[in-house]
Protein backbone atom coordinates (compact mmCIF):
# COMPACT_ATOMS: atom_id res chain seq x y z
CA UNK A 1 0.00 0.00 0.00
CA UNK A 2 1.25 3.51 -0.87
CA UNK A 3 1.15 6.45 1.52
CA UNK A 4 -1.64 8.82 0.61
CA UNK A 5 -0.74 11.21 3.41
CA UNK A 6 2.62 11.89 5.09
CA UNK A 7 2.95 14.17 8.10
CA UNK A 8 6.49 14.95 9.26
CA UNK A 9 7.60 16.85 12.37
CA UNK A 10 4.44 18.94 12.59
CA UNK A 11 4.32 21.60 15.32
CA UNK A 12 1.28 23.79 15.84
CA UNK A 13 0.45 26.58 18.28
CA UNK A 14 -2.96 28.22 18.51
CA UNK A 15 -2.93 31.99 17.94
CA UNK A 16 -2.25 33.72 21.23
CA UNK A 17 -1.21 30.50 23.06
CA UNK A 18 2.22 30.35 24.69
CA UNK A 19 2.76 26.57 24.32
CA UNK A 20 2.40 24.45 21.17
CA UNK A 21 -0.66 22.21 21.01
CA UNK A 22 1.60 19.44 19.70
CA UNK A 23 5.27 19.18 18.79
CA UNK A 24 7.05 17.40 15.92
CA UNK A 25 4.16 15.08 15.27
CA UNK A 26 4.53 12.50 12.47
CA UNK A 27 2.00 10.15 10.87
CA UNK A 28 1.77 8.13 7.68
CA UNK A 29 -1.62 7.14 6.26
CA UNK A 30 -1.75 4.48 3.57
CA UNK A 31 -4.32 4.14 0.83
CA UNK A 32 -7.42 2.32 2.06
CA UNK A 33 -6.57 2.65 5.76
CA UNK A 34 -9.03 3.72 8.42
CA UNK A 35 -7.18 5.67 11.09
CA UNK A 36 -9.02 6.40 14.33
CA UNK A 37 -7.64 9.30 16.30
CA UNK A 38 -8.48 9.56 19.99
CA UNK A 39 -7.32 11.69 22.88
CA UNK A 40 -8.52 14.09 25.57
CA UNK A 41 -10.42 17.28 24.69
CA UNK A 42 -8.09 20.03 23.56
CA UNK A 43 -5.24 17.64 22.72
CA UNK A 44 -5.17 18.76 19.09
CA UNK A 45 -7.10 16.03 17.24
CA UNK A 46 -9.38 18.43 15.37
CA UNK A 47 -6.52 20.87 14.80
CA UNK A 48 -4.56 18.10 13.09
CA UNK A 49 -7.42 17.50 10.63
CA UNK A 50 -7.73 21.24 10.00
CA UNK A 51 -4.00 21.51 9.33
CA UNK A 52 -4.17 18.69 6.77
CA UNK A 53 -6.81 20.51 4.69
CA UNK A 54 -5.22 23.93 5.29
CA UNK A 55 -7.97 25.41 7.43
CA UNK A 56 -5.08 26.28 9.73
CA UNK A 57 -1.34 26.78 9.17
CA UNK A 58 1.39 24.92 11.15
CA UNK A 59 4.36 26.56 12.89
CA UNK A 60 6.73 24.06 11.25
CA UNK A 61 6.80 20.63 9.64
CA UNK A 62 5.39 19.34 6.40
CA UNK A 63 2.23 17.59 5.23
CA UNK A 64 2.34 15.75 1.89
CA UNK A 65 -0.62 14.46 -0.07
CA UNK A 66 0.54 11.78 -2.53
CA UNK A 67 4.05 13.21 -2.26
CA UNK A 68 3.13 16.87 -2.90
CA UNK A 69 3.32 19.33 0.01
CA UNK A 70 -0.24 20.51 0.66
CA UNK A 71 1.08 24.08 1.01
CA UNK A 72 1.95 23.95 -2.72
CA UNK A 73 -1.49 22.76 -3.84
CA UNK A 74 -4.29 25.18 -4.76
CA UNK A 75 -6.54 25.10 -1.68
CA UNK A 76 -9.71 24.24 -3.63
CA UNK A 77 -7.98 21.32 -5.41
CA UNK A 78 -6.59 20.00 -2.14
CA UNK A 79 -9.94 20.20 -0.38
CA UNK A 80 -11.82 18.40 -3.14
CA UNK A 81 -9.37 15.46 -2.79
CA UNK A 82 -8.84 15.62 0.96
CA UNK A 83 -12.31 16.37 2.27
CA UNK A 84 -13.00 17.59 5.78
CA UNK A 85 -16.39 17.02 7.39
CA UNK A 86 -16.94 19.18 10.47
CA UNK A 87 -18.33 18.02 13.80
CA UNK A 88 -21.46 20.20 13.48
CA UNK A 89 -23.04 19.88 10.03
CA UNK A 90 -23.78 23.13 8.22
CA UNK A 91 -26.60 23.54 5.72
CA UNK A 92 -27.44 26.54 3.54
CA UNK A 93 -30.96 27.95 3.19
CA UNK A 94 -32.71 25.85 0.56
CA UNK A 95 -33.91 22.36 -0.21
CA UNK A 96 -32.07 19.12 0.43
CA UNK A 97 -31.31 18.90 -3.31
CA UNK A 98 -29.89 22.45 -3.37
CA UNK A 99 -27.64 21.56 -0.45
CA UNK A 100 -26.42 18.35 -2.08
CA UNK A 101 -25.67 20.17 -5.34
CA UNK A 102 -24.03 23.18 -3.63
CA UNK A 103 -20.43 22.08 -4.45
CA UNK A 104 -21.21 21.91 -8.16
CA UNK A 105 -21.84 25.68 -8.20
CA UNK A 106 -18.16 26.33 -7.39
CA UNK A 107 -15.70 27.01 -10.21
CA UNK A 108 -13.21 24.34 -9.10
CA UNK A 109 -15.91 21.67 -9.57
CA UNK A 110 -17.12 23.02 -12.94
CA UNK A 111 -15.77 19.99 -14.82
CA UNK A 112 -17.68 17.53 -12.68
CA UNK A 113 -21.17 16.66 -13.80
CA UNK A 114 -23.80 17.08 -11.11
CA UNK A 115 -25.75 13.92 -10.24
CA UNK A 116 -29.35 13.76 -11.42
CA UNK A 117 -32.34 13.37 -9.10
CA UNK A 118 -32.57 9.61 -9.64
CA UNK A 119 -28.97 9.09 -8.53
CA UNK A 120 -29.43 11.42 -5.56
CA UNK A 121 -32.53 9.47 -4.48
CA UNK A 122 -30.54 6.20 -4.67
CA UNK A 123 -27.70 7.66 -2.62
CA UNK A 124 -30.13 9.02 -0.02
CA UNK A 125 -31.38 5.45 0.42
CA UNK A 126 -27.81 4.24 1.01
CA UNK A 127 -27.37 6.93 3.65
CA UNK A 128 -30.58 6.00 5.50
CA UNK A 129 -32.23 9.16 4.21
CA UNK A 130 -34.72 7.54 1.81
CA UNK A 131 -38.24 8.95 1.83
CA UNK A 132 -37.21 12.37 3.15
CA UNK A 133 -37.70 14.01 -0.24
CA UNK A 134 -35.24 16.15 -2.16
CA UNK A 135 -37.55 19.17 -1.94
CA UNK A 136 -37.59 19.24 1.87
CA UNK A 137 -35.93 22.34 3.44
CA UNK A 138 -32.51 21.17 4.66
CA UNK A 139 -32.67 23.33 7.77
CA UNK A 140 -35.69 21.34 8.98
CA UNK A 141 -33.79 18.04 9.09
CA UNK A 142 -32.56 16.67 12.42
CA UNK A 143 -28.86 17.03 13.31
CA UNK A 144 -28.39 13.31 12.64
CA UNK A 145 -29.95 13.63 9.20
CA UNK A 146 -27.93 16.79 8.46
CA UNK A 147 -24.72 14.95 9.40
CA UNK A 148 -25.50 12.21 6.88
CA UNK A 149 -26.40 14.85 4.25
CA UNK A 150 -23.07 16.60 4.94
CA UNK A 151 -21.22 13.30 4.49
CA UNK A 152 -23.11 12.47 1.29
CA UNK A 153 -22.55 15.98 -0.08
CA UNK A 154 -18.81 15.61 0.47
CA UNK A 155 -18.75 12.15 -1.13
CA UNK A 156 -20.42 13.45 -4.29
CA UNK A 157 -17.04 15.09 -5.02
CA UNK A 158 -15.38 11.64 -4.79
CA UNK A 159 -12.51 12.60 -2.48
CA UNK A 160 -9.57 10.22 -1.94
CA UNK A 161 -9.22 10.90 1.75
CA UNK A 162 -11.99 11.74 4.22
CA UNK A 163 -11.21 13.69 7.38
CA UNK A 164 -14.09 13.16 9.80
CA UNK A 165 -14.10 15.39 12.86
CA UNK A 166 -16.12 13.67 15.61
CA UNK A 167 -18.88 12.80 13.14
CA UNK A 168 -21.17 11.29 15.78
CA UNK A 169 -20.58 13.50 18.81
CA UNK A 170 -23.76 15.52 18.31
CA UNK A 171 -25.92 12.51 17.43
CA UNK A 172 -28.21 10.16 19.31
CA UNK A 173 -27.09 6.48 19.46
CA UNK A 174 -29.35 5.43 16.58
CA UNK A 175 -28.08 8.18 14.23
CA UNK A 176 -24.50 7.48 15.36
CA UNK A 177 -24.88 3.79 14.46
CA UNK A 178 -26.06 4.80 10.99
CA UNK A 179 -23.03 7.05 10.47
CA UNK A 180 -20.64 4.32 11.70
CA UNK A 181 -22.25 1.84 9.32
CA UNK A 182 -21.81 4.30 6.40
CA UNK A 183 -18.17 4.85 7.37
CA UNK A 184 -17.46 1.14 7.42
CA UNK A 185 -19.09 0.64 4.03
CA UNK A 186 -17.07 3.53 2.56
CA UNK A 187 -13.84 2.05 3.86
CA UNK A 188 -14.44 -1.68 3.23
CA UNK A 189 -16.55 -1.68 0.08
CA UNK A 190 -15.47 1.50 -1.66
CA UNK A 191 -11.86 1.54 -0.49
CA UNK A 192 -11.99 5.13 0.81
CA UNK A 193 -9.23 6.21 3.16
CA UNK A 194 -10.62 7.60 6.41
CA UNK A 195 -9.02 9.61 9.19
CA UNK A 196 -11.59 9.87 11.95
CA UNK A 197 -11.41 11.83 15.18
CA UNK A 198 -13.71 10.23 17.72
CA UNK A 199 -14.46 10.15 21.41
CA UNK A 200 -16.67 7.08 21.17
CA UNK A 201 -15.73 3.43 21.72
CA UNK A 202 -16.28 2.72 18.05
CA UNK A 203 -13.59 0.39 16.76
CA UNK A 204 -14.18 -1.36 13.45
CA UNK A 205 -12.29 -4.58 12.81
CA UNK A 206 -9.83 -5.38 10.09
CA UNK A 207 -6.14 -5.09 9.24
CA UNK A 208 -6.69 -1.70 7.62
CA UNK A 209 -7.84 -0.14 10.93
CA UNK A 210 -5.29 1.59 13.17
CA UNK A 211 -5.90 3.43 16.41
CA UNK A 212 -3.74 6.39 17.41
CA UNK A 213 -3.84 8.44 20.58
CA UNK A 214 -2.78 12.05 20.81
CA UNK A 215 -1.88 13.19 24.31
CA UNK A 216 0.72 15.42 25.96
CA UNK A 217 1.66 16.93 22.59
CA UNK A 218 2.61 13.57 21.05
CA UNK A 219 0.97 10.93 18.90
CA UNK A 220 1.27 7.20 19.59
CA UNK A 221 -0.02 4.04 17.92
CA UNK A 222 -2.29 2.03 20.21
CA UNK A 223 -2.49 -1.76 20.25
Amino acid at each position, binding site marked *: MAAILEIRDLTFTH*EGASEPLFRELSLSVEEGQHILLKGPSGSGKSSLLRLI*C*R*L*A*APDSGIIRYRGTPV*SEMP*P*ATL*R*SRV*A*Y*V*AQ*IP*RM*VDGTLEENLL*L*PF*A*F*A*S*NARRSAPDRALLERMLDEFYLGGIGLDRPAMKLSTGQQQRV*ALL*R*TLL*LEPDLLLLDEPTSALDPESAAMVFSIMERLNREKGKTLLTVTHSDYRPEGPQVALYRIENRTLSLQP
Partner: protein
Amino acid sequence: MTTSAIIDISTGQLLLALVFILTAQLSSFVFRLGLHRDIAVGTLRTFAQLFLMGYVLTYILHSDSFWLVVGVFAVMVTSAVFIVKGRVNEKQVPYLLPTFITMLLSYFTTAVFVSALIIGSAPWWEPRYFIPAGGMVIGNSMSALAISIERFFRELRQQRETVEMKLCLGADYREASADIFRGAVKAGMIPSINAMMGVGLVFIPGMMSGQILAGADPQVAIRYQIVVMLMLVGSTAVSSVAVMLLIRRRCFGSGEEPLLSPE
Protein backbone atom coordinates in the same frame (compact mmCIF):
# COMPACT_ATOMS: atom_id res chain seq x y z
CA MET B 1 -43.50 87.73 -1.92
CA THR B 2 -40.11 89.12 -2.85
CA THR B 3 -36.73 87.62 -2.12
CA SER B 4 -35.09 89.61 0.66
CA ALA B 5 -31.59 89.50 2.10
CA ILE B 6 -30.95 86.42 4.26
CA ILE B 7 -31.76 86.92 7.97
CA ASP B 8 -28.67 86.69 10.17
CA ILE B 9 -28.61 84.43 13.27
CA SER B 10 -27.21 86.25 16.30
CA THR B 11 -25.10 84.52 18.98
CA GLY B 12 -28.05 84.57 21.38
CA GLN B 13 -30.35 83.01 18.81
CA LEU B 14 -27.70 80.39 18.05
CA LEU B 15 -27.46 79.48 21.73
CA LEU B 16 -31.26 79.22 21.85
CA ALA B 17 -30.88 76.21 19.52
CA LEU B 18 -29.20 74.40 22.42
CA VAL B 19 -32.74 73.75 23.68
CA PHE B 20 -32.78 70.83 21.26
CA ILE B 21 -29.68 69.40 22.88
CA LEU B 22 -31.21 69.85 26.33
CA THR B 23 -34.23 67.78 25.26
CA ALA B 24 -31.92 65.07 23.93
CA GLN B 25 -29.96 65.09 27.19
CA LEU B 26 -33.22 64.90 29.15
CA SER B 27 -34.27 61.81 27.15
CA SER B 28 -30.88 60.23 27.77
CA PHE B 29 -31.15 60.94 31.50
CA VAL B 30 -34.78 59.82 31.97
CA PHE B 31 -34.48 56.64 29.94
CA ARG B 32 -30.88 55.88 30.98
CA LEU B 33 -29.69 55.77 27.38
CA GLY B 34 -26.13 56.50 28.45
CA LEU B 35 -25.73 58.98 25.59
CA HIS B 36 -25.19 62.18 27.61
CA ARG B 37 -21.43 62.19 27.11
CA ASP B 38 -21.66 61.53 23.37
CA ILE B 39 -24.34 64.22 22.97
CA ALA B 40 -22.22 66.76 24.88
CA VAL B 41 -19.04 65.96 22.97
CA GLY B 42 -20.96 65.91 19.68
CA THR B 43 -22.43 69.35 20.39
CA LEU B 44 -19.06 70.86 21.27
CA ARG B 45 -17.50 69.31 18.18
CA THR B 46 -20.32 70.60 15.98
CA PHE B 47 -19.71 74.16 17.16
CA ALA B 48 -15.93 73.95 17.07
CA GLN B 49 -15.56 72.05 13.78
CA LEU B 50 -18.14 74.08 11.87
CA PHE B 51 -16.85 77.47 13.05
CA LEU B 52 -13.34 76.37 12.21
CA MET B 53 -14.55 75.06 8.86
CA GLY B 54 -16.30 78.40 8.26
CA TYR B 55 -13.06 80.31 8.68
CA VAL B 56 -11.11 77.78 6.65
CA LEU B 57 -13.75 77.73 3.92
CA THR B 58 -13.79 81.52 3.66
CA TYR B 59 -10.06 81.35 3.03
CA ILE B 60 -10.11 78.30 0.75
CA LEU B 61 -13.06 79.39 -1.38
CA HIS B 62 -11.18 82.53 -2.30
CA SER B 63 -7.93 80.69 -2.84
CA ASP B 64 -6.44 80.05 -6.24
CA SER B 65 -3.95 77.46 -4.98
CA PHE B 66 -4.46 74.02 -6.54
CA TRP B 67 -2.34 72.34 -3.87
CA LEU B 68 -4.28 73.92 -1.03
CA VAL B 69 -7.57 72.60 -2.45
CA VAL B 70 -6.19 69.10 -3.01
CA GLY B 71 -4.54 69.18 0.42
CA VAL B 72 -7.83 70.07 2.12
CA PHE B 73 -9.49 67.24 0.20
CA ALA B 74 -6.83 64.78 1.39
CA VAL B 75 -7.30 65.94 5.01
CA MET B 76 -11.05 65.38 4.69
CA VAL B 77 -10.51 61.82 3.40
CA THR B 78 -7.95 61.08 6.13
CA SER B 79 -10.37 62.26 8.81
CA ALA B 80 -13.10 60.09 7.29
CA VAL B 81 -10.85 57.01 7.48
CA PHE B 82 -10.27 57.60 11.18
CA ILE B 83 -14.00 57.98 11.77
CA VAL B 84 -14.55 54.65 9.95
CA LYS B 85 -11.83 53.12 12.14
CA GLY B 86 -13.63 54.34 15.26
CA ARG B 87 -16.87 52.67 14.18
CA VAL B 88 -15.44 49.39 12.89
CA ASN B 89 -13.03 48.49 15.70
CA GLU B 90 -11.33 45.50 14.02
CA LYS B 91 -7.80 44.56 15.00
CA GLN B 92 -7.16 41.20 13.32
CA VAL B 93 -7.32 42.41 9.72
CA PRO B 94 -5.29 45.42 8.45
CA TYR B 95 -7.98 47.23 6.48
CA LEU B 96 -7.14 50.92 6.96
CA LEU B 97 -4.60 51.43 4.18
CA PRO B 98 -6.70 49.86 1.39
CA THR B 99 -9.71 51.77 2.72
CA PHE B 100 -7.80 55.06 2.63
CA ILE B 101 -6.42 54.54 -0.89
CA THR B 102 -9.80 53.49 -2.29
CA MET B 103 -11.61 56.38 -0.63
CA LEU B 104 -9.06 58.88 -1.89
CA LEU B 105 -9.16 57.64 -5.49
CA SER B 106 -12.89 57.03 -5.82
CA TYR B 107 -13.98 60.24 -4.07
CA PHE B 108 -11.45 62.31 -5.99
CA THR B 109 -12.68 60.87 -9.30
CA THR B 110 -16.31 61.53 -8.37
CA ALA B 111 -15.62 65.10 -7.23
CA VAL B 112 -13.65 65.84 -10.43
CA PHE B 113 -16.39 64.32 -12.59
CA VAL B 114 -19.06 66.46 -10.93
CA SER B 115 -17.17 69.74 -10.82
CA ALA B 116 -15.48 69.47 -14.22
CA LEU B 117 -18.02 67.65 -16.39
CA ILE B 118 -21.45 68.16 -14.85
CA ILE B 119 -21.11 71.64 -13.35
CA GLY B 120 -18.40 72.64 -15.83
CA SER B 121 -16.37 74.74 -13.44
CA ALA B 122 -13.06 76.12 -14.67
CA PRO B 123 -10.57 75.16 -13.43
CA TRP B 124 -12.00 71.77 -12.45
CA TRP B 125 -10.69 72.18 -8.91
CA GLU B 126 -12.43 75.53 -8.36
CA PRO B 127 -12.84 75.32 -4.57
CA ARG B 128 -16.39 76.72 -4.53
CA TYR B 129 -17.63 73.57 -6.30
CA PHE B 130 -14.91 70.98 -5.72
CA ILE B 131 -14.75 71.19 -1.91
CA PRO B 132 -18.52 71.06 -1.21
CA ALA B 133 -18.98 68.23 -3.75
CA GLY B 134 -16.06 66.33 -2.21
CA GLY B 135 -17.36 66.96 1.30
CA MET B 136 -20.77 65.53 0.51
CA VAL B 137 -19.30 62.46 -1.22
CA ILE B 138 -16.88 61.80 1.63
CA GLY B 139 -19.44 62.32 4.40
CA ASN B 140 -22.11 60.14 2.85
CA SER B 141 -19.91 57.32 1.55
CA MET B 142 -17.94 57.21 4.79
CA SER B 143 -21.08 56.21 6.69
CA ALA B 144 -21.92 53.62 4.05
CA LEU B 145 -18.41 52.19 4.19
CA ALA B 146 -18.46 51.97 7.98
CA ILE B 147 -21.75 50.03 7.80
CA SER B 148 -20.46 47.70 5.06
CA ILE B 149 -17.07 46.97 6.64
CA GLU B 150 -18.44 46.46 10.14
CA ARG B 151 -21.15 44.10 8.85
CA PHE B 152 -18.69 42.17 6.67
CA PHE B 153 -16.32 41.48 9.58
CA ARG B 154 -19.17 40.62 11.96
CA GLU B 155 -20.86 38.22 9.53
CA LEU B 156 -17.57 36.59 8.62
CA ARG B 157 -16.99 35.82 12.29
CA GLN B 158 -20.56 34.65 12.92
CA GLN B 159 -20.72 32.49 9.80
CA ARG B 160 -17.20 31.13 9.95
CA GLU B 161 -18.35 27.49 10.04
CA THR B 162 -20.54 27.99 6.96
CA VAL B 163 -17.67 29.69 5.13
CA GLU B 164 -15.37 26.80 6.06
CA MET B 165 -17.99 24.29 4.91
CA LYS B 166 -18.06 25.93 1.48
CA LEU B 167 -14.26 26.06 1.33
CA CYS B 168 -14.17 22.34 2.12
CA LEU B 169 -16.53 21.68 -0.77
CA GLY B 170 -14.19 23.32 -3.27
CA ALA B 171 -15.20 27.00 -3.04
CA ASP B 172 -12.49 29.64 -3.25
CA TYR B 173 -12.53 32.45 -0.70
CA ARG B 174 -14.62 34.66 -3.00
CA GLU B 175 -17.29 32.01 -3.49
CA ALA B 176 -17.27 31.05 0.18
CA SER B 177 -17.89 34.66 1.27
CA ALA B 178 -20.06 35.81 -1.67
CA ASP B 179 -23.32 36.01 0.30
CA ILE B 180 -21.66 37.92 3.14
CA PHE B 181 -19.98 40.28 0.65
CA ARG B 182 -23.27 41.04 -1.13
CA GLY B 183 -25.13 41.56 2.15
CA ALA B 184 -22.48 43.96 3.44
CA VAL B 185 -22.34 46.09 0.26
CA LYS B 186 -26.14 46.24 0.07
CA ALA B 187 -26.42 47.26 3.73
CA GLY B 188 -24.11 50.22 3.03
CA MET B 189 -25.97 51.27 -0.12
CA ILE B 190 -29.54 51.05 1.14
CA PRO B 191 -29.53 54.44 2.97
CA SER B 192 -28.46 56.28 -0.23
CA ILE B 193 -31.10 54.47 -2.28
CA ASN B 194 -33.77 55.14 0.35
CA ALA B 195 -32.75 58.79 0.30
CA MET B 196 -33.53 58.90 -3.44
CA MET B 197 -36.97 57.41 -2.74
CA GLY B 198 -37.83 59.94 -0.03
CA VAL B 199 -36.18 63.11 -1.32
CA GLY B 200 -38.66 65.92 -1.91
CA LEU B 201 -41.46 63.89 -0.33
CA VAL B 202 -40.25 62.92 3.10
CA PHE B 203 -37.42 65.38 3.51
CA ILE B 204 -35.82 68.43 1.91
CA PRO B 205 -32.08 67.91 1.65
CA GLY B 206 -29.79 70.22 3.59
CA MET B 207 -27.88 71.44 0.57
CA MET B 208 -31.01 72.45 -1.32
CA SER B 209 -32.53 74.11 1.74
CA GLY B 210 -29.29 75.99 2.30
CA GLN B 211 -29.20 77.25 -1.27
CA ILE B 212 -32.83 78.37 -1.15
CA LEU B 213 -32.34 80.05 2.24
CA ALA B 214 -29.33 81.81 0.79
CA GLY B 215 -31.53 83.22 -1.98
CA ALA B 216 -30.78 80.86 -4.89
CA ASP B 217 -33.38 80.10 -7.55
CA PRO B 218 -35.19 76.88 -6.40
CA GLN B 219 -34.98 75.49 -9.97
CA VAL B 220 -31.19 75.77 -9.89
CA ALA B 221 -31.07 74.37 -6.34
CA ILE B 222 -33.12 71.37 -7.47
CA ARG B 223 -30.74 70.59 -10.35
CA TYR B 224 -27.78 70.72 -7.99
CA GLN B 225 -29.61 68.48 -5.56
CA ILE B 226 -30.38 65.88 -8.23
CA VAL B 227 -26.70 65.80 -9.19
CA VAL B 228 -25.80 65.35 -5.51
CA MET B 229 -28.25 62.47 -4.99
CA LEU B 230 -27.01 60.59 -8.06
CA MET B 231 -23.37 61.32 -7.19
CA LEU B 232 -23.83 59.90 -3.69
CA VAL B 233 -25.34 56.62 -4.89
CA GLY B 234 -22.58 56.17 -7.47
CA SER B 235 -19.69 57.02 -5.17
CA THR B 236 -21.11 54.84 -2.40
CA ALA B 237 -21.44 51.86 -4.74
CA VAL B 238 -17.97 52.23 -6.25
CA SER B 239 -16.14 52.86 -2.98
CA SER B 240 -18.01 50.11 -1.08
CA VAL B 241 -17.37 47.45 -3.73
CA ALA B 242 -13.71 48.46 -4.18
CA VAL B 243 -12.94 48.59 -0.44
CA MET B 244 -14.71 45.31 0.23
CA LEU B 245 -12.88 43.56 -2.60
CA LEU B 246 -9.55 44.70 -1.18
CA ILE B 247 -10.21 43.87 2.45
CA ARG B 248 -11.93 40.55 1.73
CA ARG B 249 -8.65 38.99 0.56
CA ARG B 250 -7.00 40.14 3.79
CA CYS B 251 -9.57 38.18 5.80
CA PHE B 252 -8.20 34.89 4.42
CA GLY B 253 -4.76 33.32 4.80
CA SER B 254 -2.46 31.77 2.21
CA GLY B 255 -4.53 28.56 2.28
CA GLU B 256 -7.67 30.72 1.85
CA GLU B 257 -8.58 29.83 5.44
CA PRO B 258 -10.66 32.40 7.35
CA LEU B 259 -8.44 34.46 9.66
CA LEU B 260 -11.09 36.12 11.81
CA SER B 261 -11.67 34.21 15.03
CA PRO B 262 -15.28 33.22 15.74
CA GLU B 263 -17.13 35.48 18.21
